[in-house]
């Protein structure tokens, strides 16, 4: 069965620190990849997505992610975090042949001002 692993469950950073959140998936075929973010008290919202093409994708608020097919990874990065990035981040995979999405367990990021 497909699965998505987010190894960092809780991350605490100071403002201006660099961020990298890991996401690994288990699926051998073509996949669509997503990062969602949930700010405190708000809905889940799409941060960025990868369908095809350039494996380095840029999303909102300065986030980016790199798809490395050989490593089955889609790590989320941001060069310099802000206090407002405090949120929970979810990685998700979709098999293009189906409509199902598999989500990771999420990473809670806390940025200290």
């Amino acid at each position, binding site marked *: 069965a497909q699965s998505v692993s987010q190894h960092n469950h809780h991350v605490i950073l100071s403002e201006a620190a660099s961020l990298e959140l890991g996401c690994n998936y288990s699926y051998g075929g073509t996949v669509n990849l997503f990062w969602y973010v949930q700010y405190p008290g*708000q*809905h*889940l919202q799409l941060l960025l997505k990868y369908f095809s093409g350039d494996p380095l994708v840029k999303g909102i608020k300065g986030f980016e992610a790199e798809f490395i097919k050989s490593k089955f990874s889609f790590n989320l990065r941001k060069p310099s975090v802000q206090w407002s990035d405090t949120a929970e981040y979810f990685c998700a995979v979709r098999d293009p042949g189906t*409509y199902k999405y598999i*989500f990771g*367990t999420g990473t809670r990021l806390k940025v200290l001002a």
Partner: protein
Amino acid sequence: GAGVSQSPSNKVTEKGKDVELRCDPISGHTALYWYRQSLGQGLEFLIYFQGNSAPDKSGLPSDRFSAERTGGSVSTLTIQRTQQEDSAVYLCASSGGLRLYEQYFGPGTRLTVT
């Protein structure tokens, strides 16, 4: 409305009671998903509706769970004879149009079974 709405936002119920959770998707979105998010867990797929096709109910954890989507729009998730392990946040998402594979989530319903 501009986004996906869900009601109620919070529901506290006694074990054994039935509950109904409602989802209003974005107008025109043909796809609708229900997920369950338990503490410390990811989003667990429950059920999927696409247009007028038969729904995919493969994620429903037991026959106490059922869902309907009327007129291709509003959806209701029903949990019969609730158990304490049903306590979770139930999320609805919809997608459609040119961004068919981008899900838009509602705020969720937090269900607590006492």
